[in-house]
């Protein structure tokens, strides 16, 4: 459904879309892992958004609309350029999970202390290594702080899918972070 705008299109665009730039940049940075790439991705997203702004229905969720444009732009352009994340074998993650379960259940509070020792970069690297669909939900939920419903709207999928991906993504991250912590000697083997 299209909407014709009265007045100046640029002014409307500025009012509706520009204040979401921080959120989009943050997302772009986590998706690309590079500040320059993120800047370019935000720029391409906004240029496209402006070009098609007459198609945006006033009163609907502009941020979700911008996120969808960014995701498509990322898929079409940037994903080809950026390094593919390493392949995750989820079965391996489950096996790992089963192995650490007995001892960790009793000392669950220790996990936080173990992860506290990790560096910011190590956590960022672990997130970057997730498959794209999983990385997206983690960024949107745990960094940007959106609800499942908002995320579902952004990535155009059911809420159940968001929940499932988020659950698996965190388990993958847990395995990855546990490995990092182990390699740094924070975990007793």
């Amino acid at each position: 459904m299209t909407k014709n705008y009265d007045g100046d299109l640029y002014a409307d665009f500025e009012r509706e879309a520009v204040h979401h730039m921080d959120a989009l940049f943050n997302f772009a940075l986590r998706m690309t892992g590079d500040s320059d790439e993120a800047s370019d991705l935000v720029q391409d997203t906004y240029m496209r958004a402006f070009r098609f702004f007459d198609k945006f229905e006033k009163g609907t969720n502009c941020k979700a609309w911008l996120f969808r444009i960014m995701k498509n732009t990322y898929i079409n352009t940037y994903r080809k350029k950026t390094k593919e994340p390493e392949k995750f074998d989820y079965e391996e993650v489950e096996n790992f999970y089963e192995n650490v379960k007995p001892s960790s259940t009793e000392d669950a509070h220790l996990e936080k202390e173990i992860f506290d020792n990790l560096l910011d970069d190590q956590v960022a690297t672990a997130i970057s290594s997730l498959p794209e669909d999983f990385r997206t939900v983690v960024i949107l939920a745990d960094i940007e702080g959106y609800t499942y419903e908002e995320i579902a709207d952004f990535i155009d999928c059911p809420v159940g899918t968001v929940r499932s991906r988020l659950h698996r993504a965190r388990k993958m991250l847990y395995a990855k972070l546990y490995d990092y912590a182990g390699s740094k000697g924070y975990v007793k083997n």
Partner: protein
Amino acid sequence: MIHDKNRQEYAELIAALVDNEIKDSRLRAELEGLKATDSGIKMEFEVQAAVKTTIKQKCRYARCPSAVKNRILLDIRTGHLAEKRTTKTESFSLRPYAYAAAIVVVFITLFIFKYTDSANISSLPVVESSVTFDKMAMNNFKAILSAKLAPQIASSDTNTIKSFFLSKGLDYDMHMICPSGWEYVGAVVSDDNGKKFGHVVLKDSQGKLIYIFEVDKKYFTNDKKLDLDNQIMSQVMSGSCYTQDQDDMGILINKTGDNVRAIVTNDKCEKLKSLFCGLQ
């Protein structure tokens, strides 16, 4: 005791419990109960919560740098206005009263008729023909910043802009000097009853703009089309650069060959000095 078939479903719901996304109070109570009695479910909860907390603590929210914001807005604005110009050209040609006598009036109305809706015309500040060259340049630059004025031709290519000036009948050569790190956004030829004047706009990667209004010096002397304070004119004619900071803008006036140019930026005039003084 959870049946294995349901364990995966419960495990996923635990993620939602951690995120406070379980709205159904009965389901919420059921999950809390399982968390307390089932070691596997408890583990799920601890893992989900630990990872979520770690990410929140370790991944700082990165704001878009202001330079990037400025660059994006500038690109959108210049592209938008250039597009509007194209679509408004026909209606402009039907408005003969746009050709007012004073150059600034002509210059601004030229853009306004071309780039904005006619409803905006009455909201324009009245610009007197007695406004001096430096004030004209600053007014034009303010209009560019507020997206009321934009290039008639959008191009970063020097030769394209030179050809544009030629095609528009400019009777003097613009000295096209593009400092390193800057690029042309586009250009304009304004028309005051047949007298043509050249204007160019440049940008850098940080979102800063430079506007140059350059004219043959004869327009200050022979037919007094333009006016500039005598003291400033003497300074400029002696080969010096006149600079001033005003309203978050910097202006520089100097001579380049037989031309006099007013250069305005949304930065300090020191910046202009380093870029344009000595480049004659």
